[in-house]
C-alpha cells in the first residue's frame, strides 16, 4: 500500500455579484480547500455611480438627493452629514426645532438601519422570522418618514439651514407612542435571537480582530466599538445638538461577530433614549433658518463627519467659492469597513464567511458610491 497523502485541490469559488447573501452586488472570489477558505479577494464597483464626480457639477442642494442613494438604509443620516458639513463650512445657524427634528429622524433612521442589520444578519444565518419581525417595525418608521418627508427610502428631507418641512400635526405624538412599543419589540428580539444557542454558536468568537488592527484599517462605527474602543462621533466630535443628550456608547469586548451584533442591539436602545429626550424637549419654532438661496461655500477645504449607521460618515469639500464644490469626497464607512474582510475570512469555512460578512454590516450603495 502506498502511503501517499490524499491529494486535494483548491477550488476557486466565485461568490456574487449575484448571490443571496452578499448584501447587494459585492463579489467575493474565494480560494477554498474543501470548505476552508485559503484566500479571499473582494471585487467591488458594480454599483459605482460616480457620486463624487456628479457632485462636482451640482449645487449643494442638488447633492442632497444623491446622498440619499449612498447608504440607502439610513438616508436621513446621509442628509444630515451633508447639510452639517455645508453648514459648518458656511457657519450657518440652524433653528432649534430643525435641529431636534433632525436628531429625531436621524436616530429613528439609525434604529431602522440596525433593524435591517438584525433581520438581514439572521437571514444570512438561516433564520427567516427575525427578518420579517424587523421589517414590521422598520415599516412603522418608514411610514413615519413618509409622513414627514413624503418618501419611504430616499427622503431628501434636510436642507442647508434647516429641514424641508415641519412635522405634520400629531407626528411627534406618534414618535412618542412608538418608543414604548419598540422597547417591547426589542425584548422580543432578545428572546428570539440573543439566547438562541445555535445563533450563539455561529457568532461567538467568529471574525474577531484586535483594537490595533481596527484602528489601522480605519474602521469606525460598531466595527470599531466592538473591539472595546469607545469612539462615537456624536460624543467625540459633537455636531448638531448631540451634546444635549445623555446616552451610552455600547462597546464590545472581543471584536467578534457576537459583539457586533449585541452592539447593534444596544445602540437601538440608546437611540431610543435620544429620541425620547428629543421629543420631550422639542419646542415650537421655525424649521428653516436664514440661508442664502444659492449656497456658496467660502473657498477652502472642509471636513465634517457624522456618526452614520455604519460608522463615521465624513464629507470632505474643497470649495473655490462657487456654488458647486470643486471636489466632493465622501468618507464612506462601509467602504473602509469592508477592507478588513479578506483578512478575517482566511482560514474560516464557507459558513463563517457569511457570518463575518453579515456582521460587518455594509451597504453596497455606500461602498461603491
Amino acid at each position, binding site marked *: 500500500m502506498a502511503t501517499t497523502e490524499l491529494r486535494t485541490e483548491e477550488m476557486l469559488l466565485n461568490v456574487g455579484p449575484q448571490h443571496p447573501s452578499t448584501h447587494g452586488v459585492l463579489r467575493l472570489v474565494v480560494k477554498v480547500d474543501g470548505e476552508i477558505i485559503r484566500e479571499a479577494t473582494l471585487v467591488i464597483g458594480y454599483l459605482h455611480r460616480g457620486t463624487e464626480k456628479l457632485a462636482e457639477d451640482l449645487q449643494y442642494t442638488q447633492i442632497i438627493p444623491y446622498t440619499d442613494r449612498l447608504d440607502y438604509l439610513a438616508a436621513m443620516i446621509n442628509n444630515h452629514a451633508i447639510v452639517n458639513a455645508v453648514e459648518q463650512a458656511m*457657519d450657518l445657524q440652524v433653528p432649534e426645532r430643525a435641529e431636534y427634528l433632525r436628531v429625531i429622524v436621524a436616530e429613528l433612521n439609525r434604529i431602522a438601519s440596525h433593524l435591517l442589520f438584525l433581520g438581514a444578519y439572521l437571514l444570512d444565518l438561516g433564520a427567516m422570522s427575525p427578518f420579517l419581525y424587523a421589517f414590521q417595525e422598520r415599516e412603522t418608521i418608514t411610514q413615519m418618514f413618509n409622513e414627514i418627508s413624503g418618501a419611504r427610502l430616499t427622503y431628501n428631507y434636510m436642507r442647508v439651514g434647516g429641514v424641508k418641512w415641519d412635522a405634520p400635526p400629531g407626528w411627534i405624538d406618534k414618535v412618542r407612542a412608538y418608543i414604548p412599543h419598540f422597547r417591547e419589540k426589542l425584548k422580543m428580539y432578545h428572546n428570539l435571537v440573543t439566547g438562541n444557542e445555535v445563533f450563539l454558536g455561529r457568532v461567538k468568537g467568529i471574525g474577531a480582530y484586535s483594537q490595533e488592527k481596527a484602528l489601522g484599517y480605519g474602521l469606525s462605527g460598531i466595527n470599531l466599538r466592538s473591539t472595546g474602543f469607545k469612539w462615537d462621533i456624536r460624543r467625540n466630535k459633537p455636531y448638531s445638538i448631540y451634546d444635549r443628550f445623555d446616552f451610552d456608547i455600547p462597546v464590545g469586548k472581543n471584536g467578534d461577530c457576537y459583539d457586533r451584533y449585541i452592539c447593534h442591539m444596544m445602540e437601538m436602545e440608546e437611540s431610543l433614549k435620544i429620541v425620547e429626550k428629543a421629543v420631550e424637549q422639542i419646542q415650537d419654532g421655525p424649521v428653516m433658518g436664514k440661508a442664502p438661496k444659492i449656497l456658496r461655500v467660502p473657498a477652502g477645504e472642509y471636513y465634517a463627519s457624522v456618526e452614520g449607521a455604519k460608522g463615521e460618515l465624513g464629507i470632505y469639500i474643497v470649495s473655490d467659492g462657487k456654488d458647486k464644490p470643486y471636489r466632493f469626497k465622501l468618507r464612506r464607512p462601509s467602504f473602509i469597513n469592508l477592507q478588513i474582510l479578506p483578512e478575517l475570512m482566511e482560514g474560516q469555512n464557507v459558513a463563517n464567511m457569511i457570518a463575518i460578512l453579515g456582521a460587518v454590516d455594509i451597504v453596497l450603495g455606500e461602498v461603491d458610491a
Partner: protein
Amino acid sequence: MTEANENKQTTTADTEAAPVEAADKPAAPVKTAAAKPAAAAKPPVEESPETIAKRAEAQKRLDEMKAILEDKFGEGALEETGLQKFQPTLVIKPEYWLPVVTYLAHDESLTFNYPECFAGTDYPAKGFIEVALYLYSMSNGRFITVKVRTPRDNAEVDSLCSVFEGANWEEREIYDLLGVNFKGHPNLVRIMMDDDYKGHPLRKDFSVWEQQ
C-alpha cells in the same frame, strides 16, 4: 481660510504655478487670514470669541506640529502649513511623505494612529494633484491633516500601506479615479471602474466622450 488656502486662491486666480513657499514664512496673523475669503463672498461676519479662541488653539497645535516635524526631518520636509477652518494642515514634500506619516503614526508621543479620511484632489491650474490624509490621534485626541503634492503627469506618491492597512483601498481608489501611482502598493489595480477603463474620472480634464 488661512494662509494655505489663501495661497491656493491666488494661484488659482493668476494660474501661474509656483506654489508659494509658505513654510519659510511665519504663519500669518489669524484674524486677517480668516477675514479675507469671507470678505470675497459677503460682508465680513462678526466672529464670536469662541471661534477666535478655537482658531488660536488650532494655530498653536499647528505650530507645535510644525516644530516637531521640522525638528525631526529638517526644514525641507514641509512644503506649506496652514489652517483649514480649525484643522492644522501640513503639506509634506513627496520624498518625506512615507517617513513623516510613519513617524506620526508610530511615535509614542504623537500616535496619529487612525486614518480618518483619504482624499485626492486634482488642481490642473496649479499643475499638481494633492493627496490629503486626515489623521486622528486616539491617545491624545488630536486631529491633523497631512498632504502631499505630486505633478499631474506621471503622478507618483509613496504608498502608505505599510503604515495603515486601511490605506490599501483608499489608495486604489485614488489611483483609479485620479491616476496617482502609489509606489510600493501591494495591489494597485482599479477598484471602481473596469479593469480596461481608460482615463481617470476625477481629473478635471476628464471627458466621458473621449471614452468611446
